[in-house]
């Protein structure tokens, strides 16, 4: 492990605060938003279409269908203090790491099959 990687690991949040995220998970991300002097928490709910590893740089992209069927994707840094909490609502069975194919699908075709049996690692 090189010096930069070890620093990146050191700056990351402890693992206990981060749920085990996977592509295909339906999550609700609680984001802190600062409006002028006020601060509030806004949830963003959708499917994880991408998860990138790498210490403090670890990030994931959540896709949700907003009003009028418009897809919105938002990328979050896992270790950002602006993220209050991440809830996993549903875990889907997916066969690839990047779910970009969901972008070209709408409605029923954009559904993912739920995974009922949780792998041992995911129950923690």
């Amino acid at each position, binding site marked *: 492990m090189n010096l*930069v990687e070890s620093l990146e690991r050191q700056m990351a949040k402890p693992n206990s605060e981060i749920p085990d995220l996977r592509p295909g998970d339906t999550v609700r991300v609680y984001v802190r938003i600062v409006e002028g002097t006020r601060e509030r928490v806004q949830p963003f709910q959708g499917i994880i279409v991408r998860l990138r590893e790498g210490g403090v740089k670890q990030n994931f992209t959540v896709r949700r269908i907003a009003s009028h069927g418009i897809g919105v994707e938002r990328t979050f840094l896992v270790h950002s203090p602006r993220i209050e909490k991440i809830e996993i609502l549903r875990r889907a069975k997916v066969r690839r790491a990047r779910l970009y194919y969901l972008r070209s699908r709408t409605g029923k075709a954009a559904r993912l099959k739920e995974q009922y049996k949780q792998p041992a690692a995911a129950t923690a």
Partner: protein
Amino acid sequence: MKGILGKKVGMTQVIKADGEVVPVTIVEAGPCYVTQIRTLEQDGYRAVQLGYGAAKPKHLTKGQVGHLRKAGVADLRYLGEMRMREDEAYEVGQKILVDIFSPGEFVDIEGRSKGRGFAGVMKRHGFAGGPHTHGQSDRTRAPGSIGACATPGKVWKGKKMPGQMGNKQVTIQNLEVVLVDPDRNLLAVRGSVPGPNGSLVVVKAARKQRVLKGGN
């Protein structure tokens, strides 16, 4: 002027407490040792000579080894000088560590840029090149016209042309110090630093004061 020699380690990012993500370059700065003091009387200018980086004596010339022995310091690979103000005092053998800098300060970083060799005008000066179509066959990366006709009847001095690019000394001014880690001799600085990872860099206190946008 305070300064230190170091090595560029690489780039990463730091997330501040308010969530701001800062791109940083990690520099392993020091420990440096004062190897010589240049004085007005003897050398005509004031400066401190600093040494950095462990070296095996077999990789140094006998002259270098003798110079370092005289200063009473370990065998060092790199030597560099920093100009010294009148009110500053250093002594030979003194150890200089990263803790001379603290977060929020601004520094200038000097290094040798990555060499690009003999580069054409598109890479070196950002020219647009010529057309790829309309019957053009070998004008794609050409510089175009380099001047007019009988007036001025010559090519202007300083005309941007192909040539050596990179591998020259570059100074980046006013980089903000984001983190200082005295235990590991590390310095994190906002933005990029010239040169490849592992190359020698000189970190100095900023010469020019930074004017913040829309400053008070």
